[in-house]
């Protein structure tokens, strides 16, 4: 038996024809794979959030370290530098801490979500649509947090290089 069904979403220009036929006979392997997929669909957001939580811990450590280092050594480290080098070193430190803070926010947003007012799903398709959107946003926030972590590190190394090798008075 063969059925031809049409998926019609109002947002799409033309509906895509979907053909459904009886598949190959079930095997223990295909059943196991299906159970694995069921687990993936159920647990994916939890797994992503656990990953984001680890990144948040790392970023929190970097932010705390850089802020502390900046507070205690910043003034004396740039004391002997020329004004231009001081400005660049200070700017790099501020930018580095800002990048780490943004990364921290993004990783927390990925790990714990961001409560916003949203209309509830009116149907199964909308519910799945909303969940997939949440997954994509979580992944984007996590990637953003990773980028911020490396940018922060690069900026702090730049500031360090200026204080070491920058022009003195």
């Amino acid at each position, binding site marked *: 038996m063969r059925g031809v069904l049409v998926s019609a979403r109002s947002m799409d220009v033309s509906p895509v024809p979907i053909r459904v036929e009886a598949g190959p006979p079930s095997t223990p392997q*295909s*059943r196991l794979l299906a159970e694995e997929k069921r687990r993936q669909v159920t647990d994916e957001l939890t797994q992503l959030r656990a990953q984001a939580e680890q990144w948040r811990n790392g970023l929190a450590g970097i932010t705390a370290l850089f802020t502390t280092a900046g507070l205690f050594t910043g003034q004396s480290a740039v004391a002997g530098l020329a004004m231009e080098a001081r400005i660049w070193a200070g700017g790099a430190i501020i930018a580095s801490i800002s990048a780490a803070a943004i990364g921290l926010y993004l990783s927390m947003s990925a790990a714990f979500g961001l409560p916003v007012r949203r209309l509830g799903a009116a149907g199964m398709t909308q519910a799945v649509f909303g969940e997939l959107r949440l997954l994509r946003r979580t992944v984007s926030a996590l990637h953003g947090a990773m980028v911020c972590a490396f940018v922060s590190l690069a900026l702090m190394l730049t500031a360090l290089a200026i204080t070491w090798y920058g022009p003195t008075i």
Partner: protein
Amino acid sequence: MTPAPASADPPNETVLPYAPSSSTDWDKLAASTASVELVPNQVRPEQLLITGDCPRCGHATVWREPLVKFAGLNGNHLLSGLLSRAAPKTERDIEVICECVEAHSGQDHRYGCGASWSLHVAWT
């Protein structure tokens, strides 16, 4: 997996006990009644939403077939993403497990009667 009696008869009135089972007749029956939707859109679908009645117990069931994976990536997702874009798959053999919300005695999972059936879904 326990082979099931080959029957495409209408489902029983009584609630069947939980039993992991499959049948080629169920595959044919489910293929004729299943409704498939591409989510979130038809251009870059991430899941197939398959709805219909379970051919064994007759209860309404929904199966979500993931086409992409988000969690657990370890850095090679860029390559796999490029590969999947280069050769997008538009057909797939899917094993659907009954996920009905009816209570079946002996359940080892939160939902379903244990039956599974196989579908071949193709879209363009």
